């Protein structure tokens, strides 16, 4: 890549400390290659253009790499931490079951063997940010096991993709949810996509709806385009009463497939940080030394890049 080329040149230039780096000059063509016509190094303007384009391409690749690989690591970490929290809460029966629950609080444990979901910690809230932690419970619906229809959203591509195999659930499969009110078994009743009929169950029973995104064809697996729903109803037990105080409306960013527009400001902030870090990096390379700069700069750069990519993915639909 052109960056490395020019960097190598610069490094070669500044190996001897104390010397002013010599300006880029055209090297005389070695006589052995005299006969081959070749191009020299790009001009300054072209170098800058190459640099910018390369940076942007790198950022794009970084974004793809981040969302497909690094976010899973992040989600695994969050799930481990939340599992420890939830385990303690369930043992003490202090996991919240009603009222106003702070977003991000773990409230339930979700298992569905048929869909490869084991011990998933469900948090409260279905914002993009909340779904980065794992499956999220929609705040204006009752908790799983309570009367009514409880809705749990989950991602299918990024951040661990907990619901990536949701489509493999068949009618009759069991979904187990554990909350502070007990262990509930739900039986899958139907899988619906756009245009499928959706009978409205009575309010007396407890129902569960899992929502994620899916697509087919070339987009399958990494670029979902529509939401799918899995409906399940409680079997073998009576629904629990719903404590009062639940919110009746939720933010627009918590709807299925909605992005969190408030992350824009944060995105701009992180972009500024990125620019600052890169400028500092470049400046430090000249003043400080390449090795030092690389050792200090690379983690910083990765951190800022990670944060910027996370913020950018918050702007995207929350079920991806």
């Amino acid at each position: 890549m052109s960056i490395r080329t020019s960097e190598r040149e610069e490094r070669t230039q500044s190996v001897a400390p104390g010397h002013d780096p010599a300006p880029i000059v055209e090297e005389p063509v070695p006589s052995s290659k005299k006969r081959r016509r070749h191009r020299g190094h790009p001009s300054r303007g072209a170098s800058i253009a190459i640099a910018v384009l390369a940076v942007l391409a790198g950022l794009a690749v970084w974004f793809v790499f981040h969302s497909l690989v690094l976010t899973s690591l992040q989600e695994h970490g969050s799930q481990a931490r939340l599992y420890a929290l939830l385990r303690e809460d369930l043992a003490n029966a202090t996991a919240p079951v009603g009222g106003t629950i702070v977003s991000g609080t773990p409230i339930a444990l979700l298992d569905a063997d048929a869909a490869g979901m084991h011990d998933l910690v469900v948090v409260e809230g279905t914002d993009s940010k909340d779904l980065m932690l794992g499956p999220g419970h929609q705040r204006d619906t009752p908790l799983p096991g309570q009367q009514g229809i409880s809705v749990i959203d989950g991602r299918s591509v990024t951040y661990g993709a907990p619901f990536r195999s949701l489509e493999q659930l068949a009618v009759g499969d069991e979904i187990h949810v554990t909350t502070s009110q007990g262990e509930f078994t739900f039986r899958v009743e139907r899988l619906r996509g756009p245009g499928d009929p959706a009978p409205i169950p009575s309010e007396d029973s407890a129902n569960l709806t899992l929502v994620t995104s899916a697509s087919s064809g070339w987009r399958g697996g990494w670029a979902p385009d529509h939401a799918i729903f899995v409906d399940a109803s409680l079997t073998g037990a009576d629904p629990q009463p719903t404590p009062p105080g639940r919110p009746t409306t939720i933010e627009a960013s918590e709807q299925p497939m909605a992005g969190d527009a408030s992350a824009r400001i944060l995105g701009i902030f992180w972009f500024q940080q990125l620019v600052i870090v890169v400028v500092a990096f470049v400046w430090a390379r000249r003043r400080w030394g390449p090795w030092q700069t690389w050792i200090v700069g690379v983690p910083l750069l990765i951190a800022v890049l990670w944060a910027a990519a996370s913020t950018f993915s918050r702007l995207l639909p929350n079920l991806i």
Partner: protein
Amino acid sequence: MSRIRRRLLVAALASAAVALVLSATTGATAGSSFSKTETISRTHLVDGADQVVDTRTFHVTVDQTTQLRDRQEINVSWSGAHPTGGLVGDTNSQFAAQQEYPVAIMECRGLDNGSLPASKRLSPETCWTHTAAERAQSSLSFQWPSYRLDRYATPADRRARVGVPSPLPPACLSLGSGVQHWIPFKAADGSVYAGGADGCAGIAPDAVTYEGSLQPSNTTYAQTDLQGKGSTKFVISTADSNASLGCSNTAPCSLVIIPIMGLSCDPDAANLPEDDRPPADVRDLAFSRCAATGQFQPGEFAGAPNIEDLSVSGLLWWSESNWRNRITVPLRFAQSANICDARKDSAPVYVYGSELVTAATLQWAPRFCLDPKLFKLAHVQTGEPQAKNLLQNGTIEAAFEAAPPQTPFQRPTVQAPTALTGFAITFQVDDGSGHPLQTLRLTPRLLAKLLTESYAGLTVVQSTYPALANNPLDLAQDPEFTALNPGAPAPGYNTPPAATLYSLSSDSDVIWALSSYINADPDARAWLDGKPDPWGMVVNPAYKGIELPVVSWPLLDDFAEGWLYTNDGNMCLAQDPTPILPLIAAPVATLAQLALNMQFGVANSQIVCKDSGSITQKLAAVGRENPGQRFILGITSLADAERYRLDAASLLTHTDPGAASKFTSAAGRTFVPPEDASLRAAARMFQPVEQDGTWVLPYDKLRSSADGTGAYPGTMLVSTAVPTQGLPMTDAKRYAEFLRFVAGEGQQPGFGNGQLPPGYLPMTASNGMSTFAHYTQLAADAVAAQQGGTVSVTTLNTTTSPSNGDGTDGSGTPPAGTGSGGTDTTGPGGSGPTGTGGSGPDADVPAIGETLSVGSGPGGLAAPLALGLAVILALAAGGTWFFGRPKVAA
């Protein structure tokens, strides 16, 4: 006949039979009255021969015996009874039992059917009496009181000691020996309370030893006039207010009416054992006491107590001579609204607000909660302004209101007319001869005088408070009042409760309506601004110029000096000086409390110092006023006034131009009581106000226009305010269902589930309110759609406001309004169209929705786009590098 035809015929006959049965059962609910006639007599058995003393034909009518609710009053009237002597003022008190020849009316558990098992049969042991003295007799000095000589009593009942538990409880030992006859009380839960003369052997929790409590018993010893006729109101109690008696639909009760004729005596006691026969030397005395015919003349008031003849008094209602003359009326109760609490349903749909519609929602709620396809409706009673505030800040989803909100609702909201009712100024006023007045006329100025604490109430206040020194002492002394109500008590009659109108202390649209009515009257307004009335009375300076209307009536007077605040006056006030006039006004928090006070004539003025002088002294209410000397006025809802048979005052609507200002009679002025015709006339006067979003009663037009002359000024329209945006769809559909019910089926008058009780004028076309019903239907549609629609009150057009302003933009996120509808089942807010079909007014068809396409928009393509971008940029960079190098000649 072919098989198909046969089957069709069978089906038709079956459905006809079902329809017939259904119509029969529903038809029988409306106020079924009861009448019966029987011959009653008093016949002694002397020397083996009958001696007829008196025979009469007693005929009684009870006006309502089904669909009864707790504390409801029914009317019992009769003819052909023995006139009552030794009259007392309060026929519900324990002293009323001592009257001679009363008609005893009491509520008993069980039915009067010999074939029923003992637990379901009524007897004196299951009849409710409030005090111990009404069901126990003891005679310490004389061994042969009249009840031992009752010829119809069983031998066991004629013994010396009947109903006394053995061993005798320690508390009863002080009663000594002597003849005792106790009737135990069997409570609903199976406990038996022996009672005793002073209740020493235990009384039911709801009973008292001596009367002192505020709420009287419903046992009535009614009075018959000289012609043998009489009528009285009887208060029904169910298990809600009397758990010991425990009347309900599962524990049937009866009304027992016993015309007391006196005991039929049998002094010889020929077939009784020796011990129960009066000895020869006492026989004549015992017989003369038993056969006594009364110490008082019929119609004579009881002077000295305890000189009545026991054998003809109401105290012996249980004795078989009287008991066998009973007339039993089975009672059937309306289904209690508690039945909804017992159902294990999903979360109810809450509507907060107005107490004016409590009676209606009490009957509507079972209709909703008992239908498995409907839902539980819960009416949380709060003041209307409070409910509107809660709706305004989104804490609740629907509110009953009776006036438009002060600041318009932020969300698009419909205010759908629900019930036409109003407030009543109810009164318990007895005239000079002790009989209750049936009508009362009041002007807005009189109401203003009562509310503004302009009557001193107490002479000591009048003498020391210069501002009120020249004002009449109370309403009864006000010439304006006596001119309009000639039968009212003569001047010289004064109690502090006559100086005020008992009203509400909390925020309420009822106060708003009342103060609007007062404010619209020019005489009242001028008087409030300081102009004296034609007789020289001025407003209390604390209230001068008060701005009306208000939602909460302020208590502004602060006079707290004079003799009253010394230890000789009122020790409670001396220790803790509180302004006296607000204590006389003593408003309460709820209309229900006001109705209770007015039903039992309880004056709430907190001016009596209880336990005066001791460390526990405190101010208490004046309490129940004595019947015959009552003068209290209060505000109640029309529904409560109907249910508890309270008399409502007629309010001024129109003054003829030529009518005198210093008047001496009601001539030239029109006063309108609350009744169907006047409510109907008022309903026609309501005017739609577009910016308020509802209808308003123009009080000034009541005075000026011809139509307004017959309109009742206390009419109020109660509406349900429901937002049409931002509600979860399941709740929105339920509110819509409720509104549709209210607009149609809920306006059927009656006492059954889902019907409209008295006190409300049905919102139908025949009452001129088809616009209200139509508006409510349109409002229901707007609520169900949840699209921000509002219905104009003037044109009845529905306008939908455009989408809900939460569209996000930029960065490839889809606007939340379009893509994120989901389906109704997942209930993601109310934003965006939901498009579920088939969920119209029929709640019995489960709605089938269609899963909407929730697209991810361009954001879903983030990864491929990014990768593509990367490739393109890399190529571009490579290309720039490749082609950007200047050619170097080799």
